[in-house]
C-alpha cells in the first residue's frame, strides 16, 4: 500500500494529468481516422466497383487510394513523433511535481 501511494502521487501530479489528456486528444482521433481510412479501401473494393475508375492515365482510383495510405502513414507518424517528443517534458515535470509534493505534503 505504501508503495502504491508513490504511484498515485505521480498520477495526481498536474503534469501527468496534462500528459494523459494530451495523449488522448491526439491518439484517439488519430487512431479512429486511420482505421476508417484504412478499411475504406478494402470495403469499397470488396463490395463495390467504384475504385475501378481510371483517374490519372492508366492509374485507377484503387491505386491512388492505396498510395494515399502510404502518405497518410508517413504524415501521421511524423505528427505523432513531434508531439511525443514534446510529451517527454511533461513526463519530466510530472516527476518533479510528484517529488515536490512528497516534500511539502
Amino acid at each position, binding site marked *: 500500500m505504501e508503495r502504491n501511494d508513490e*504511484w498515485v502521487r505521480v498520477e495526481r501530479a498536474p503534469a501527468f494529468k496534462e*500528459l494523459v489528456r494530451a495523449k488522448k486528444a491526439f491518439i484517439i482521433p488519430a487512431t479512429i481516422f486511420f482505421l476508417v481510412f*484504412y478499411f475504406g479501401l478494402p470495403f469499397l473494393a470488396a463490395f463495390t466497383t467504384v475504385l475501378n475508375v481510371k483517374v490519372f492515365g492508366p*492509374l*485507377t482510383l484503387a491505386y491512388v487510394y492505396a498510395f494515399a495510405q502510404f502518405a497518410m502513414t508517413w504524415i501521421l507518424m511524423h505528427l505523432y*513523433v513531434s508531439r511525443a517528443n514534446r510529451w517527454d517534458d511533461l*513526463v519530466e515535470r*510530472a516527476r518533479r511535481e*510528484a517529488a515536490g509534493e512528497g516534500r511539502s505534503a
Partner: protein
Amino acid sequence: MSDQVIAIIFFVAIIALTLGITAWASRQTTDTSHHYVAGGEIKGWQNGLAISGDYLSAASFLGIAGSIALTGFSGFYLSIGFLVAYLVVLLLVAEPLRNMGKYTLADMLTSRFNTSSVRSVAALSTITISMFYMIAQLNGSGALIGLLLGLPYWLSVIVIGILMTIYIVAGGMIATTWIQIIKAVLLIAGSLTLSIMVLARYGFNPLELFSAVESEIGKEFLVPPPPESFTTSLDVISLNIALVLGTAGLPHILIRFLTVPDAKTARSSIVAATWIIGLFYLLTPILGYGAALVVGQDEIAEANAAGNLAAPQLADALGGPIFFAFISAVAFATIVAVVAGLVVAASSAFAHDFYTNVFRGGEASEQEQLRAARYAAIGISLAAILLALPAESFNVAFLVALAFAVAASANVPVILLTIFWKRFNTTGAVTGILVGLIASVGLVLISPNVLTGPNPEPPATPIIPVDAIFPLLSPAIVSVPLGFLGCYLGTVLGGRGAEREREQGIQTSYDEIRVRANTGITNIEQEIREASPAEEPRTT
C-alpha cells in the same frame, strides 16, 4: 563459369559474411541480457534498419512480388496492410511496451499480472506465432534454393534450418541484429536496382509501366478483383484486419523495442523503419508487374504455383545469371535473417518464460538460462523444419498473413487491454490469449487452407480432401473479436476482480501500470523519493 557456379560463389560469400558477424558477436554475448535484447544498447537508426530487416521477410520480397505478378492489385493489399500496421504499433503499443517490458512479451504482461499462468500462455502464443512465421520463411527458402541450386525442396529446408540454428546459438540477438541490418541494406539495394531496370524499359515512367500492364496483361490487373460473392468480400476484409492489427502482436517485432535504451530511441527507430519499409513496398508493384510483363505470368506460375520466384526470375531476365545469383543470395540472406530473429523470439519465450520463471521459479543462474535458450533455439528450429516440409504449395506472403491473424487474435487484445483497461484481471488475460489462439489456429485448420474450398486457388490447395467447415481463408474477422470477447468474459465472469487480485499480490495496481506505461518510470522509490531529498520519513 556456369550459372550455378556463380550462384554458389554468391551464396558462399553471403554465408561467410554472416557467419563472420556471428563469430564477432558471439564474443560480445556475455550474459542473457545480451542474448535476448543485445543489452538494450542498440542505436535508433540501427534498430530501425533491423526492424525493417525483420519485417521485410521472404513474404515481402518473394511473396508480394509474386502475388502482384499473378493476381494484380489484390497482391498490393499485403503491402498497404503491412505498412499501415506500423501506425497501430507506434500510436498504441510501442511506448507502453518499451516502458513495461524486459525481454519478452510475457514480461510486459506479467509486469501487471504476476502469475505463472499468464506467463505460460503468453509464451505459448509467442511460440505458436513464431512457428507459423518460420514455416512461411522456410517455405520461401525451399522454393528459392530449389530453383537456384537444383536441390529438392526438403533438402533446402533442412540446410537453411541448420544454418539459422548456428547463427542463433552462437550469436544471439547482437548477431541477428547485425545480420538484419546488412540484409536490409542488401535487400533494398537489390530491389531498387531491379525496379530501376524495369522502369528503364518504360522510359523511367511508372505510368507507362501501368499502361503496359493494361494493354498487355489486361486492365483487370490494375483494379481489385470484382466482388464475386459475400464470402470472398468478407475474406478481403478479414485479411485486412489481420494485416493491420497483426504487427502489434508479433513477438519478434515487439522485442525490437526492448533492444533500445529509451522511448525516444524506440520512436526514432520506428520512424526510420516506417520510411524504409514504406519505400520498399512502393517498389512492389514495379517488381510484380515487371515480372508479369518481362518474364510472363505462365512462366512465373510454372516455376512456382504461388508465384514465390517472380522476383529472382525477373532478375534473371533483366540482368542475366550474375544478377540472378545476387538477388537470390539476397533473398536467401533475408530468409536466414528473419528466421534467426524469429528463433530468438521463440527461444526467449521458452527459456526465459517457461524454463527460468515457471519451472525454476526465477532461480536459474545466468549460465543455466543461456544454455536453456540455446537448447530451446535448437528444438524450435527442428520443429519448424518438420512443419515446413508439407507446406510447399503455399504462397509465402499468404502463410505470413496467417501468422498475422494468429498474432492479431491472441496477442493484440490482451496487450491493448493490459495497457488501457483498469478492470482487466488475470483470468481475463489467460482466457483472452487462449481463446484468440485456439480460435485463429482452429479456424485455419477447418478452412479452405487445409480442407477443400469452393474455389481452389493457389493458396487453397487442400491438404486434406474434405469440404471446408469455415468458409474464409483468413480467420481474423471472427477470431479477433473472439479474442477480445475472451478477455472480457474471463474478466467479468471468472476470477476475483482487479481489486481482490491486487490485495492478494497477483496483480500490480493500475495506478502503477498507468504511470509506468505513460512515463517509463520503473523504480518509483528511487526516482521520486530520492528526487525529494528534504523528505523525512513521516509516521502519521
